[in-house]
């Protein structure tokens, strides 16, 4: 059976930082590599508060309780438990709701859409996917290469059951050998994010274009490609290698940097009015894991 996706609610970190203040005399890097001129950092709210804030707004708008809540986050402040249950409690969600966490990054929204599609039924007819990440907690002050890429963000996306099966294709994959190329490790009681950008880049350009080509070989008339905008150079390379029309690939670089699991909800929100019934929409997320998840959906 199928899945209907509502317009996501998105929250960006409260402090907007122009990258030219960090990367002085590097306008070439900002324009051609990163893509975005600004990043957003959250200075006041915890990841829990960011999640509660955006989930409450989404539930208030839809005026009904979800039957399941999928939290996509790796940024919890305790080793366990995940903050999914505490967040659901703080949002006033009924305590018979199926609440669980997907520990994933930029692939997390696509993976959760796939899971939500499996969960939805006539009985379990609606749910919510909440993505929250605050990478600024883990980035070293002097790690400018990483600092300029990521924005803190949260999103909440309501999904509903549809009688029409609209998940046309799905592809998942991982590379466990290179897991450490994007990781958070402990260093003198603090946790720090380490990223080998070249490895993440190669993983992405090796896998994503192959999958997109497999899909476009069968489905010639895809209307939109919502591809995780990790960075401009990465997205440009994926587009070129996939042989797809860049006009069908919206980006969010005019808004902010890489918002991790919220990147695709942000693309959906920003382009929601353009998506028409029966359009074919490809959604692709890739990153931490290393992992990737790509779905082709018929829009309902």
């Amino acid at each position, binding site marked *: 059976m199928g899945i209907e996706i509502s317009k996501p609610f998105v929250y960006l970190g409260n402090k907007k930082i122009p990258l030219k203040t960090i990367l002085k005399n590097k306008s070439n890097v900002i324009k051609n590599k990163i893509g975005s001129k600004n990043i957003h950092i959250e200075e006041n709210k915890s990841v829990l508060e960011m999640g509660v804030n955006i989930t409450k707004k989404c539930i208030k708008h839809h005026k009904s309780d979800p039957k399941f809540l999928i939290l996509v986050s790796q940024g919890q402040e305790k080793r366990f438990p995940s903050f999914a249950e505490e967040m659901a409690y703080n949002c006033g969600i009924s305590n018979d709701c199926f609440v669980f966490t997907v520990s994933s990054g930029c692939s997390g929204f696509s993976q959760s859409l796939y899971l939500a599609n499996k969960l939805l039924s006539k009985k379990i007819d609606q749910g919510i996917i909440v993505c929250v990440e605050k990478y600024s907690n883990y980035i070293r002050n002097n790690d400018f*290469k990483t600092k300029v890429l990521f924005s803190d963000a949260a999103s909440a996306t309501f999904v509903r059951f549809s009688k029409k099966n609209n998940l046309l294709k799905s592809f998942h994959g991982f590379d466990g050998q290179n897991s450490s190329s994007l990781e958070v490790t402990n260093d003198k009681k603090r946790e720090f994010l380490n990223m080998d950008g070249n490895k993440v880049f190669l993983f992405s350009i090796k896998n994503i274009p192959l999958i997109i080509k497999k899909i476009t070989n069968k489905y010639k008339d895809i209307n939109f490609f919502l591809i995780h905008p990790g960075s401009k*150079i*990465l997205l440009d390379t994926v587009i070129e290698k996939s042989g797809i029309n860049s006009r069908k690939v919206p980006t969010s670089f005019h808004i902010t940097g890489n918002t991790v699991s919220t990147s695709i909800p942000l693309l959906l929100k920003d382009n929601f009015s353009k998506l028409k019934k029966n359009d074919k929409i490809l959604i692709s997320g890739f990153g931490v894991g290393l992992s990737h998840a790509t779905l082709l959906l018929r829009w309902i």
Partner: protein
Amino acid sequence: MNSSKIIGVISKALGQKVTESSSIQNTKKWDSLGHLQILAALDKFTKGKSSKISELNDATSVKTIIKHLTK
């Protein structure tokens, strides 16, 4: 795949002429952006074969790149 073609691809990717003795240390435009541009250009030139060679991640000289692509 010959060396001069590889040097040509790297030069074009960086927008700066390089030689077999060029590296990230002595080439102005070969920074982290430049390295990604090289990886993307080599991937295109080799029709995807180079992105399977993980050693290229850390290959920051023309000599090393040629070595990995021609072995």
